[in-house]
């Protein structure tokens, strides 16, 4: 069978074998010992034509309920936000997506400049001095922050708030295991980091304190109060932050964060079943040379023209090998480009407007829930999520909501024993008043029905 990606003709093959001086392609594999040689073909599905395959895969995709057909109230770290259509048009330019890492700056100025702009935008939003060119995701970025802090302070303990995303905490623990670092969790108090407990727990072995802002429950942590506690103990202050929220919230840099990490998924990147998203990593000037991953810097050529290059590479694995600041090589460049385009489209005003819409609509949801008699688990300021006490099965409620064309919230009982029967509801700018009203009405009806059947 002929393949459209393989241009070789039988005449080409013959000519090339002759040039090489062998009789057959098989001869080129004669260095593979007989004992390990694979005979025949893989036992995998046969090739399909373009049309047949797209049809099959479209049907497979059709088995999934997507946030275009369903109104989604599910967040918990991944959000259905406005994705400016222009984003996909930019990242579909194949000069970007079919390029490798820009190691040859003369023919990679486009990518390098785009990353330099990304670094600037992230630094601006987070209020940090500098940002790198991206990490895999928010969870691994947080874990890398822990590694950086442990290396920098030569201490072996990480304090992480229980209000940090549970899966991110899991990733921090796995990385810490490799470095024999202890990870200790700071308890919650009313849905936020328990600051009194933090004061008790922090000591001279603490490398860093990690909090999330806004936190996993959508609550806004009191960074101002936490910062001096961390720094007095000589630890680094790590803040994991949804960058979209920073359009409206005072950025972590203003509160003295040493490291701010997170995921830029809310800026133009599809949910894609959890990845690829786009981790970011921002630090103070002081930590510049400790940063993991690639950095793009500005310089000039011999004629004085401005240009961009990968710089401070002495930190990286391909130069420093076992002494590198991290093992990261591939990052999320294309998604960093997507996030850049989305941040550019939203711009100075739009980033604020979209963040304010999230806060406002979540506040509206909260009021409507309260009006229907629901108990909001944690009061105070919310960004785009609220935890509500249902007293009934979240799974069953989600099944009922699904019937009505809605994707319900996250079952907090899955990660927090004390929060069985609590749902974490996300409200982004994408949800209309009508959808919010319908959602409240449905969960109200469901809970009443459940209560009636138990009565």
């Amino acid at each position, binding site marked *: 069978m002929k393949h459209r990606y393989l241009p070789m003709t039988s005449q080409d093959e013959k000519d090339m074998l002759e040039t090489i001086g062998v009789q057959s392609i098989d001869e080129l594999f004669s260095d593979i010992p007989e004992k390990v040689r694979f005979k025949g073909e893989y036992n995998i599905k046969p090739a399909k034509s373009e049309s047949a395959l797209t049809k099959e895969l479209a049907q497979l995709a059709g088995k999934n309920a997507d*946030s275009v057909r369903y109104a989604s109230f599910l967040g918990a770290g991944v959000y259905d936000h406005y994705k400016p259509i222009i984003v996909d048009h930019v990242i579909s330019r194949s000069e970007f997506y079919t390029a*490798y890492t820009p190691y040859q700056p003369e023919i990679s100025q486009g*990518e390098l400049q785009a990353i330099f702009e990304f670094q600037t935008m992230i630094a601006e939003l987070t209020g940090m001095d500098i940002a790198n060119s991206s990490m*895999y995701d928010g969870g691994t970025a947080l874990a890398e922050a822990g590694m950086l802090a442990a290396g920098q302070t030569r201490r072996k303990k990480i304090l992480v708030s229980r209000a940090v995303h549970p899966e991110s905490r899991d990733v921090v623990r796995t990385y810490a295991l490799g470095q024999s670092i202890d990870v200790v969790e700071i308890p919650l108090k009313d849905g936020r980091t328990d600051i009194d407990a933090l004061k008790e727990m922090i000591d001279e072995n603490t490398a860093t304190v990690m909090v999330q802002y806004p936190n996993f429950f959508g609550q806004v942590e009191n960074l101002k109060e936490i910062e001096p506690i961390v720094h007095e103990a000589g630890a680094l202050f790590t803040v994991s932050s949804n960058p979209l929220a920073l359009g409206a919230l005072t950025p972590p840099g203003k509160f003295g964060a040493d490291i701010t990490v997170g995921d830029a998924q809310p800026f133009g990147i599809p949910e894609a079943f959890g990845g690829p998203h786009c981790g970011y990593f921002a630090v103070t000037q002081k930590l510049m040379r400790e940063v993991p991953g690639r950095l793009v810097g500005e310089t000039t*050529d011999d004629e004085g023209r401005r240009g961009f290059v990968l710089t401070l590479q002495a930190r990286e694995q391909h*130069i420093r090998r076992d002494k590198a600041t991290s093992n990261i090589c591939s990052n999320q460049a294309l998604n960093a480009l997507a996030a850049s385009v989305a941040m550019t489209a939203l711009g100075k005003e739009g980033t604020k407007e979209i963040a304010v819409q999230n806060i406002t609509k979540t506040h509206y949801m909260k009021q409507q829930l309260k009006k229907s008699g629901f108990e909001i688990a944690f009061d105070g300021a919310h960004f785009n999520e609220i935890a509500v006490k249902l007293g009934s099965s979240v799974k069953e409620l989600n099944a009922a909501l699904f019937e009505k064309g809605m994707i319900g919230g996250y079952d907090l009982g899955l990660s927090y024993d004390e929060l069985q029967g609590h749902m974490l509801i996300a409200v982004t700018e994408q949800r209309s008043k009508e959808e919010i009203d319908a959602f409240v009405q449905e969960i109200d009806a469901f809970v009443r029905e459940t209560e009636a059947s138990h009565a």
Partner: protein
Amino acid sequence: MHKDNQPLIFEMTKQGRVGYSLPELDVPEVDLTELLGQELVREEFAELPEVSELDIMRHYTALSKRNHGVDSGFYPLGSCTMKYNPKINESVARYSGFANIHPLQEESTVQGAMELMYDLQEHLKEITGMDEVTLQPAAGAHGEWTGLMMIRAFHEANGDFNRTKVIVPDSAHGTNPASATVAGFETVTVKSNEHGLVDLEDLKRVVGDDTAALMLTNPNTLGLFEEDILEMASIIHKVGGKLYYDGANLNAVMSKARPGDMGFDVVHLNLHKTFTGPHGGGGPGSGPVGVQADLIPYLPKPILVKTDEGYTFDYDRPESIGRVKPFYGNFGINVRAYTYIRTMGPDGLKKVTEYAVLNANYMMRRLAPHFDLPYDRHCKHEFVLSGRRQKKLGVRTLDMAKRLLDFGYHPPTIYFPLNVEEGMMIEPTETESKETLDDFIDAMIQIAREVEENPEIVQNAPHTTVINRLDETKAARKPVLRYQKPTDSE
């Protein structure tokens, strides 16, 4: 190509312009200060651009023209497998049922996605000859670290806490030793012999009861198949160590030799290399890890399970190393890789490897008279030339690489692996035609001639790019890593 700078997007800003379209707020406004308190309300806007949608499109179009991708031209960058990125992959990954689904949705609403992941795992198991596969790691280096963490867990579960060393060849990718460090191991280097292969005597010297694993790329970074692989496996296994396969070069051996059959215990794959998930200018990638049966308990959790009622994620994995990434890996890249495998089928994947190796050997033989070929034997998917002959004439490999830019090519990987002087590592891939290879070979031969007759043209290259060679020392000495808005006084 004109040589004017493309302004930064920040320099195009004009107050009052917008590039977005948000819905009108349809719920009552709130007073942010009242709600959050003064301290939490951002005082100064982030200095993001203020531009129209057309401004944005023109800006990024201009940037794209200053960038070289596989679709722009030949990209023989060794070790990176810069093959064609099929367009069907891009279309399929954008199907709404794949792009717009949430990782924490009820499993019953994402069965199609889980089916795809499961079937991809099944395909990768067959391709690698391993017993189980996880799709969680986000990239190759992430897969390396994941695999090493599993090896560590395996040894510790056996009460074996003294296996502190990971052995890597001197020709290994930099990620290998770096991943070993992150996983808490010490790196020991094993030398290559005069044939460019791992020196068995040296390997025997460095192994011991403190050996946790040997990491190998096969074929290695010189593009040479490690013929003694079974003996190496036996040396490592005899001392109780594990054998790790760096899958960066899998494109060279598909349907020819499987890591599982060579004695490897753990394998990572780079789906963005062999399986055409695009490189994206540096990522995202995807780095699934395959293991033999004895390492299955340590796989990252959750693992994907097929039951009579459908697919489900199993979190009840007491011996698992834990999570290595939130959610289930870079699903979007996995969709692309799956689409590619299904497009090629078993006969296609076999041809991929055969033509990748044919192309590399053809180029190697045609270029050999003009450059030094340190290891003269059949190569696999790539080969390494040395520019030491040219260096004697005052022209470095870096200069020749830059000169290739004038011919419209991306140069080979240079100065790697470290054991070749003035190395040029060339990987053509199977998707390039003989005509493309011939044109590139002609350019290389011309450059070799220029080195002898007119070295300045090579030493001062490139001449046709949007920018000349950049001052990298300046970039590192006084790092400027972001744009700063000029203050009024400037």
